[in-house]
């Protein structure tokens, strides 16, 4: 047996021998709030590398849409970002209306604004309170969630559903909102500021919360743009891009509101941008109610709008329309459009190609979180595991939208 001799010199490069451990985070883990899998390469508690796997709840929406009449695609859009389904519904209606070149009455547009801003508040409530939960502050979550419940009650009053709403029609709304719905909205506007203030007091200037979230998972403005970040996440990085301002739709140009921006792009900024957006949304709803114009609730689109029942029973034409709409036999003009709305987590786009039939030829959803979630491994490199969880919840990644 020979004896090995090792000599060391000062100039010799020291090769540190490291062994990384692999940690499988997800797919179903209470901390990931949805079905996300990340295979992490860990150096102790520091993340060295992450490989995300997505597609666990892929439901082939784009393929399904190719065989469905236009009105029946709305329930599919509900299931994209299910935290703010009404925004998806309205975005889809506006896409079809753009293709039809339909003019929507102001009154319907204002109603749409109210419903969209309510669902934006609901979306932000979920995201922000969950950031609280992940930092260990359960209280805020428990208190603010009753306001989300109130918003869902409003949706229920308007359309009968709570989560997957399918609210409204192509062309506007089916009927005037009931008095109960308006009472609930007014109650909400009166009471919610107190609840939101309480939530702000709990977290916004809370030392523990700030220590935990400031500088946690930051992203620079440049990187955010190259990864096509949109919505609150982009604004937190300091870019004041908001579809509502840039390409106003549904009469957003009639309202005054500010677009909050952050500076660092970290978890705290993302949280704060959403907090401020909730206040702005409240103000938009108040303005819409104050300025509410008179007029019809829907555009004159007999091909898409179920006629009143008395007419269906008594006139031939209404009966034909009724049958055609229910069977989805309405032909759509040829064309291709892209329409985007500011969803709960950013620019939600619908790219629609119609070849003139009853169903779309091709429909593509530009799903914001599918695009920006790919920056996640980059954002969590070198930070602690518990911060990575926090970063994910602050990005507002919704599994339904991610996987389509």
């Amino acid at each position, binding site marked *: 047996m020979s004896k090995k001799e090792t000599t060391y010199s000062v100039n010799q490069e020291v090769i540190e021998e490291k062994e990384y451990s692999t940690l499988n985070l997800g797919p179903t883990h209470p901390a990931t709030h949805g079905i996300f899998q990340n295979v992490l390469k860990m150096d102790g508690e520091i993340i060295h590398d992450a490989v995300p796997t*997505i*597609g666990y709840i*892929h439901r*082939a929406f*784009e*393929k*399904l849409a*190719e*065989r469905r009449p236009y009105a029946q695609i709305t329930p599919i859009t509900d299931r994209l970002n299910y935290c703010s389904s009404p925004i998806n519904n309205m975005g889809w209606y506006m896409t079809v209306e*753009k*293709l039809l070149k339909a003019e929507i009455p102001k009154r319907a547009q204002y109603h749409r604004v109210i419903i969209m801003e309510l669902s934006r508040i609901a979306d932000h409530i979920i995201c922000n309170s969950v950031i609280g939960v992940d930092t260990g502050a359960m209280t805020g979550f428990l208190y603010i969630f009753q306001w989300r419940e109130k918003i869902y009650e409003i949706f229920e009053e308007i359309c009968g559903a709570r989560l997957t709403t399918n609210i409204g029609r192509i062309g506007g709304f089916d009927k005037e909102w009931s008095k109960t719905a308006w009472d609930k909205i007014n109650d909400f506007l009166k009471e919610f500021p107190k609840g939101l203030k309480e939530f702000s007091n709990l977290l916004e200037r809370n030392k523990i919360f700030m220590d935990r979230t400031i500088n946690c998972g930051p992203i620079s403005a440049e990187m955010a*743009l*190259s*990864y*096509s970040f949109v919505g609150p996440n982009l604004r937190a990085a300091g*870019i004041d*891009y908001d579809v509502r301002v*840039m*390409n106003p739709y549904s009469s957003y140009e009639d309202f005054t509101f500010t677009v909050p921006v952050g500076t660092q792009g970290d978890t705290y900024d993302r949280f704060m941008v959403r907090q401020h957006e909730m206040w702005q949304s409240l103000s938009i709803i108040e303005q819409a109610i104050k300025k509410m114009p008179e007029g019809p609730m829907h555009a004159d689109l007999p091909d898409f709008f179920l006629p009143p029942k008395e007419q269906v029973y008594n006139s031939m034409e209404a009966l034909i329309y009724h049958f055609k709409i229910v*069977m989805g*036999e309405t032909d759509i003009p040829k*064309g*291709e*459009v*892209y329409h*985007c709305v500011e969803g709960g987590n950013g*620019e939600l*786009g619908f*790219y629609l*190609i119609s*070849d003139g039939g*009853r169903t779309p*030829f*091709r429909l*593509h959803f*530009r799903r914001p979180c*599918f*695009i*920006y*979630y*790919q*920056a996640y491994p980059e954002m969590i490199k070198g930070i602690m595991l518990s911060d990575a969880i926090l970063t994910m919840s602050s990005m507002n990644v919704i599994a339904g939208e991610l*996987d*389509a």
Partner: protein
Amino acid sequence: MELLNKVNEKLKERFYDDIESAELLYDYPVFTVNKDKVHDILKFLKEDEELNFHFLTDLCGMQTADEKQLGVIYHLHNMPKNYRIRLKTFFDINKPEVATATDLWPAANWMERETYDFFGVKFKGHPNLKRILNVDEMDIFPLRKEYPLEDQTRTDKNDSMFGR
């Protein structure tokens, strides 16, 4: 219309023959370009000082109605000036190859993987081109028109019964 002319002039100057068509569809200027030059054109649009389409809004695939060609569609955006354009490129379905845009926008990575997953478009130079939403074992490209949505042997859902 203004934007269409502006971009068209710039593109024509640089890539004369490679711009196959330029039109305004609803509110969007749409350009159809040669697939071999698509990377150069994207790079030019991104780096040109005046146009500066620095934001890749969307990238998706499609199949033409005759089922013989596949296409890739890019939606580009210049945020400060609020310019939005759409770029299309088409190629033969039997040789679906196009240059990747991942070197210009890291965001293109997953969108190209999605396009590959559903249409089988091979993006040359992509760092990790594999399926993303479907299972790895899948051997078809499901969004192609040759794969109908429902089981075609079913008779209870025959289109002729509905007068189609």
